C-alpha cells in the first residue's frame, strides 16, 4: 500500500533555493528520521510533505497520485509545541479528531455516535498512558504529557503518514527517552509511515529504519543562496550506529545551531 515517491523536488523562495534535486522512495511502514544542520531544509521538506507549502518544481506522489495541495486527513503531524487545543480537556481533544473526521460541517457528534467515539478516544489515550487525566486541560499537563496527547490525537483516526517536527526537542532527557519508547511502540503496532525531524543524531539512529541526511552538496561562497540542500545520505539502519557516518558530517549535525525555540523568545 501507500508508497511515497518524490521526484526531482525543488523548493525556492525567490532567489533562495532551499531544496534541490530531491528524489526519494519511501515504502509504507518505514520510520524515516531526518537529520541535518539547521537551515538545511528539513522543516521545509516536512511542510512540502504536509501540503502546507507547494513545491516549486517536481512531484510528490502518494501511491502514484499527486498529494493534495493542502493539509488533509491522510497525513498527521505533531509539532514541537502548540499541537493540542487549550480549550478542550484531554478526552475532548482526542474526541475532536474523531468528530471533525466524521461530522463534516458541525464537527460534532451526538448520541450513540458520540458515546462510541468517546470510548474509542479513551482507548487511544490509554495506549499513550493518559488514562488518569481525561478531564484535565492541556495547561495542567507537563510538556511530555502534552506531546503524548498530541500523538494520540493524530493517530486516533489512523492516518497513512505521521510527520513529527522535532516532537521531543523541548522535553527533558528522561522524558524524551520515555517518549522514544512510546513512539516506537505505536509505530510497530499501527504500521504507520513516520517521518521525524530530529536534532539528536543518536535519536535518529535509535528510532529510525532509515536515516535521511540533509546537506548542501554544492556551495558557492559568492552566492550562498544559489544552491539548495538535498538528501546526501540515505542510510538503511540495521545495527548501525552514529559512528558509521563520516566524522565531519556527524559533527556538523551535532553542532546544532540555535533551534527555532531558542532563536524566537
Amino acid at each position: 500500500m501507500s508508497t511515497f515517491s518524490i521526484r526531482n523536488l525543488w523548493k525556492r523562495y525567490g532567489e533562495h533555493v532551499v531544496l534541490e534535486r530531491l528524489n526519494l522512495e519511501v515504502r509504507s511502514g518505514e520510520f524515516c528520521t531526518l537529520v541535518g544542520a539547521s537551515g538545511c531544509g528539513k522543516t521545509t521538506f516536512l511542510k512540502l510533505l504536509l501540503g502546507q507549502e507547494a513545491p516549486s518544481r517536481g512531484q510528490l506522489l502518494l501511491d502514484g497520485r499527486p498529494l493534495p495541495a493542502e493539509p488533509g486527513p491522510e497525513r498527521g503531524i505533531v509539532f514541537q509545541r502548540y499541537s493540542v487545543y487549550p480549550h478542550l480537556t484531554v478526552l475532548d481533544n482526542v474526541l475532536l479528531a474523531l468528530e471533525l473526521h466524521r461530522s463534516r460541517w458541525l464537527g460534532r457528534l451526538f448520541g450513540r455516535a458520540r458515546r462510541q467515539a468517546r470510548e474509542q478516544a479513551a482507548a487511544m489515550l490509554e495506549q499513550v498512558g493518559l488514562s488518569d487525566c481525561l478531564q484535565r486541560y492541556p495547561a495542567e499537563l507537563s510538556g511530555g504529557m502534552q506531546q503524548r496527547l498530541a500523538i494520540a490525537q493524530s493517530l486516533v483516526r489512523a492516518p497513512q503518514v505521521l510527520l513529527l517536527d522535532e516532537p521531543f526537542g523541548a522535553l527533558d532527557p528522561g522524558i524524551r527517552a520515555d517518549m522514544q519508547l512510546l513512539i516506537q511502540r505505536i509505530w510497530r503496532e499501527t504500521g504507520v509511515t513516520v517521518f521525524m525531524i530530529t536534532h539528536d543524531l543518536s535519536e535518529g539512529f535509535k528510532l529510525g529504519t532509515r536515516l535521511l541526511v540533509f546537506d548542501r552538496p554544492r556551495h558557492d561562497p559568492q552566492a550562498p543562496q544559489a544552491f539548495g540542500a538535498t538528501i546526501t545520505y540515505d542510510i538503511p539502519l540495521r545495527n548501525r550506529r552514529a559512528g558509521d557516518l563520516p566524522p565531519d558530517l556527524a559533527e556538523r549535525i551535532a553542532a546544532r545551531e540555535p533551534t527555532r525555540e531558542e532563536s524566537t523568545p
Partner: protein
Amino acid sequence: MRRLINLRPERGSRLLLGLLPFVLALLAYLIASAARLADNPSDKLLPSLATMGTALYQMAVVPDARSGNLLLWVDTAASLARLGWGLGISAALGLIVGIGVGITPLLRAGLAPFIAGLSLIPPMAILPILFIVFGLGEVSKVVLIVFGIAPVIIRDMQQRVEELPGEQIIRAQTLGASTVSLVLRVVLPQVLPRLLDALRLSLGAAWLFLIAAEAIAATEGLGYRIFLVRRYLAMDVILPYVAWITVLAFAMDWGLRALSRRAFPWFGAGSTRGST
C-alpha cells in the same frame, strides 16, 4: 527601612486604602455643600445628601404627576434596552465579521481596509445622518452605539483569531476539519472569552454614545433625564443619576467578568502558562 516599591499592603489595609479616596471625596463634598448651604439655604449647586435622597425618592417611588410613571425605572429600562441591543448587535458583528476576516485571507483582503476606514469615522459626526436616516426613535440610538463600538470589537476579534498558533489551524486540517467545522470547533470557542473581554473594554464607549444620543433626542432614558433637568439646575437629580449609571456600568463589567470565569475555566490557566 525598605524601599517604597517593596512595601505591600496587607489584605485588610488594602481594602481600607481602596476605600480612602471615596471617603475623602465624599467628605470634601459634604464640607463644601454644608458651607454653601450655610451661606444660602436655597443653593442648588451642591445639594445636601438629604435633598438628593428626597429627589431620588421622588424619581424612584412616587409616580410622575404628568405621565404617572416611575421615572427612574422607566429611564433605566429604556437606557438598558438601547445599550443591550447595541452591545448585542456589536458582539454578533464582532464575532461573525472578526472571525471571517481573521481566518479567510480572501475576506481579509477584501474587507480589512474597509473596516479600518469605517473605524476612523468619528461616530458622533454621523449622528445627524443617523437621525435623518433612521428617525429620532430607538433605531438611531442603537445604530450609533453599534457604529461606535462594533469596528473596535471586529478588529480585536480579527487580531485574536490571527494570534492563534498556525500549528493549531494546520493540525485541525490534518484531523479532517472543513473550514466551517474548523471555525466552529477550534476558532470560535477560543475567541469567545476574548469577546467578553472586548465587550468589557467597550462598555465605557457604549455608555458615552448612549448618553450622547439620548441627550440630543429622546423622550426617556438616563441621559435624557440628566440633560432635561439641567435646565432647572437640578443637581439633586443629576448627581444620584450619575451615581446610578456608575453602579450599572460597574455591575455589567462585573457580570461579564464572572461569566467569563465561569464559562471558560481553561482560559485563565492557558494564558498564564501557555502550552509548553
